[in-house]
């Protein structure tokens, strides 16, 4: 994979944006309104889905891993890193697969990704707690994923339409 300077700069900006969004989100936890621990809007996933569509899978993966590693570094807890990395990688894998189906729109891909993200977090909880009972929490998180995934899909669809004329990526590299 060859990163052009423009692409590298774009990835860096998007990674910074994702990191900023997830930090912002931690300041205003949704779990104060919805009484379910661990429920998040997943604002940073907007960046991930956008990058997946606008830049491609390797770039989106690079942004995701950068965000998780730096986020883990800033929060200073290994558990947080495990949760975000496992959730993020599950989401990325599912979204890459779903995106291959040309029939699905941004919404379907994003909802699938959100569900996979939450399933990955349950997996992380099972690893850290050594207890399979946490799977009982999955139905709630999946229901939440339907909502947050749709919201993410909505924002990304707006973003993609708004930036369609910008030619963010050097498609000439690929032609």
């Amino acid at each position, binding site marked *: 994979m060859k990163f052009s300077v423009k692409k590298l700069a774009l990835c860096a900006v998007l990674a910074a944006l994702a990191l900023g969004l997830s930090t912002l989100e931690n300041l205003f936890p949704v779990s104060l309104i919805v009484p379910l621990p661990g429920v998040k809007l997943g604002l940073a996933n907007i960046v991930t889905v956008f990058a997946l569509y606008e830049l491609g899978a390797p770039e989106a993966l690079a942004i995701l891993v950068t965000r998780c590693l730096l986020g883990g570094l800033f929060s200073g807890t290994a558990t947080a890193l495990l949760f975000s990395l496992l959730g993020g990688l599950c989401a990325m894998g599912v979204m890459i697969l779903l995106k291959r189906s040309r029939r*699905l729109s*941004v919404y379907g891909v994003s909802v699938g990704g959100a569900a996979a993200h939450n399933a990955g977090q349950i997996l992380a909880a099972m690893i850290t707690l050594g207890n399979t009972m946490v799977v009982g929490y*999955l139905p709630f998180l999946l229901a939440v994923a*339907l909502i947050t995934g749709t919201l993410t899909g909505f924002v990304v669809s707006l973003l993609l339409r708004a930036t369609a004329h910008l*030619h963010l990526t050097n498609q000439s590299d690929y032609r």
Partner: protein
Amino acid sequence: MKSNSSTVKTRPTPWDALVFAAVAALAVLTALVFYGPKARTNAPLTCVVSVGGEVMDHVPLASFAGEHTYSHNGYTLTVRVSGGQVEVLHSDCPGQDCVHSGPISRAGQSLVCLPAQVVIHLESGTDGPDVIVG
């Protein structure tokens, strides 16, 4: 991007509903496995009550019926065990979270009173997972 934009769908398609339905179905399925009628007729439960970090009672739920009081940190909780479920009937703690939690009846559920440092936890009798998914 120009060559791509025609294939990128930014508006919902009927196929998205399929993903939506799949996630919803998975949610319902896991909910049924864990909270459905079958989950209730399970192995005998053990009620574990810890007060201030120390286990006070570790008793099979079936033989724990009746009312029990626990005092710690100057607060007193009245716990009632009946019909296979446990609830905090009364507590003189300020938050009343434990009372408002309502009754618990399944393995893995807990009632927690933070001010009094009382944790009531239900364990399945076999001590292992009561279901394996996948």
